[in-house]
């Protein structure tokens, strides 16, 4: 437990941002795709991924491999099969809605569906009898119902009570979001003091209300009036708001639209918390898992060099960086994600020694620096100067024995060279590239390149880095042997 808390306290601000960014990204996916098939499939893939990780951890090679394949395949399937759904979600909303908007549910509650259906029927003067059970069991009271179990919708209710429908004379039993039965026969009320304008529907509705705690909505075929029967009493409903209140009271929902919104916000908040917990768990499994050590050879990057100076040489081009962290994290670290940077802002002309510290090393989040080898780097800086230097030919090979190369002239005789002042201080000649003698058998001319050593030297713009050699070859005069 104490280890858990010590890990918790070791989280830095970068880690918190890391967790929050991923959580928010997943939360946005949830907000955008909730209620769609895409979301269900993504959730399924998420579960598959968890199983795959568990299988990999347990060493179930084939299972892990199969799950990986399924996940990869499912990801492609999502994009292909649900492309229209994804397109609709992304196109229908503006950029703001994608990144931070929350669209509340647009679909109707069962109560709203019932109210709109009832008043549509009343407007058309189509008689209807809707039964909304409460706690009492209606099976023993009502008879002849046709099992329906259809999803509740306005169109469905209208079609059930449409005059040509064989079941339109009976009652429809609605439970939750479903129409459970249609064409049900309700017990008739034996009350004798009912107004003469009440027909069989009213009597049937009142009859059921006398025997059960169900709520019955009656739409009169003759007048189009809407009436509600409950607990042996029948009353006319003046408007849809009154009906809404009665329905809510019956179903035990006391909150209005504001309450529904609060409930939805609660759901979103709960989803956000769950996501943050899950991402934190995944983050810990990645960054604080089993500790692993790796060594990387990282090139040194020199920064902030004074433009007037030139980097002549450094004792090191790369350092060995020893890193630790979770195995999963270190496996994903690429060498170019680790940087070793040394600022030459305060460097002076000549030799500068820098000690490589934690501040010089930039690592991906969650990776810890253990050691760096070697720790000191010597950097030689110089100011570039221009110097005029004579050119000399660098002959190699062997001239034929009977020949003698009497003279050789190189053009240009002098070149301007740009390089570090310290380097040029010790250079008094620029040599040509090696010129072979083996193929020379007569007087001639050659074009050769200049060999600039060290490579940091540059020939000034006035020279093109080439030289022309004009040479004279003659037959050798025999030597006198003493």
């Amino acid at each position: 437990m104490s280890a858990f808390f010590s890990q918790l306290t070791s989280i830095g601000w970068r880690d918190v941002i890391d967790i929050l960014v991923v959580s928010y990204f997943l939360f946005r996916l949830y907000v955008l795709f909730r209620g769609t098939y895409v979301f269900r499939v993504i959730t399924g893939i998420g579960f598959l991924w968890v199983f795959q990780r568990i299988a990999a951890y347990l060493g179930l090679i084939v299972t892990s491999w199969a799950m990986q394949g399924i996940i990869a395949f499912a990801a492609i399937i999502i994009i292909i099969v649900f492309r229209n759904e994804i397109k609709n979600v992304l196109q229908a909303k503006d950029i703001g809605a994608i990144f931070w908007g929350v669209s509340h549910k647009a679909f109707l509650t069962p109560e709203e569906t019932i109210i709109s259906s009832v008043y549509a029927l009343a407007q058309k003067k189509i008689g209807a009898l809707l039964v909304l059970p409460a706690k009492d069991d209606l099976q023993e009271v009502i008879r002849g119902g046709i099992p329906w179990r259809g999803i509740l919708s306005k169109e469905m209710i209208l079609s059930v009570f449409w005059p040509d429908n064989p079941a339109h004379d009976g009652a429809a039993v609605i439970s939750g979001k479903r129409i459970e039965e249609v064409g049900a026969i309700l017990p008739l009320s034996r009350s004798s003091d009912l107004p003469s304008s009440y027909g069989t529907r009213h009597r049937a509705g009142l009859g059921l209300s006398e025997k059960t705690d169900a709520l019955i909505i009656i739409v009169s075929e003759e007048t189009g009036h809407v009436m509600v029967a409950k607990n042996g009493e029948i009353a006319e409903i003046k408007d849809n708001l009154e009906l809404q209140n009665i329905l809510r009271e019956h179903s035990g929902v006391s909150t209005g639209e504001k309450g529904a919104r609060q409930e939805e916000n609660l759901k979103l908040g709960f989803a956000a918390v769950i996501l943050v917990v899950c991402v934190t768990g995944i983050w810990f499994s990645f960054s604080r898992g089993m500790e692993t050590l790796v060594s990387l050879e990282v090139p040194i990057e020199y920064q902030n060099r004074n433009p007037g100076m030139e980097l002549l040489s450094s004792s090191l081009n790369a350092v060995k960086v020893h890193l630790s962290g979770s195995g999963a994290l270190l496996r994903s670290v690429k060498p170019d994600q680790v940087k070793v940077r040394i600022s030459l802002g305060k460097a002076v002309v000549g030799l500068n020694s820098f000690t490589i510290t934690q501040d010089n090393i930039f690592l991906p989040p969650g990776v810890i620096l253990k050691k760096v080898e070697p720790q000191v780097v010597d950097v030689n800086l110089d100011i570039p100067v221009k110097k005029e230097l004579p050119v000399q030919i660098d002959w190699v090979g062997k001239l034929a024995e009977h020949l003698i190369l009497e003279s050789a002239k190189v053009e240009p005789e002098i070149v301007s060279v740009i390089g570090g002042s310290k380097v040029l201080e010790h250079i008094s000649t620029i040599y040509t590239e090696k010129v072979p003698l083996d193929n020379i058998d007569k007087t001639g001319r050659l074009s050769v390149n200049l060999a600039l050593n060290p490579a940091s030297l540059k020939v000034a713009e006035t020279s093109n880095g080439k030289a022309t050699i004009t040479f004279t070859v003659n037959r050798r005069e025999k030597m006198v042997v003493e």
Partner: protein
Amino acid sequence: MHTLRRFLKLGNFFIGCLGILYLAAGSPGAFAQDSKDADKKPAIIQAVMCEEIRDYEPHNIAAVFSIAIGKVYCFTSFNSIPRNMFVYHSWYRRDRLITTRRLSLKTPEWSVFSTIQLREADKGPWRVEIKDNNSRILKVIKFGITE
């Protein structure tokens, strides 16, 4: 009396100093002449690299020499030599001084040479700087040593 003797001694010393100063002041022309001679450079008539010196003349003058010949000579010939003096032949291989030879010149014309023994490791570009007493470079001869 004693004081007078001391005064005379001091006077003799003072006269002696004046005499030295006079001698020094009387010879500025000669001093300037020496200085002029010292500034004068001998004129180079010929400065070449060769394989052999025969009858005080260079033979097989070349710009490239094979190590197979064993030796290489730097021959220099001067005139207008202002006085007996020395010249120096400084041998460099790839900008690195290998050896310096001091050679004596006599008025009015004189020829001198220096030589080095060639070894396998001597292959590469060479130069000989010919300098006077004051380390002034009179001439540079460039050449190569090859297989």
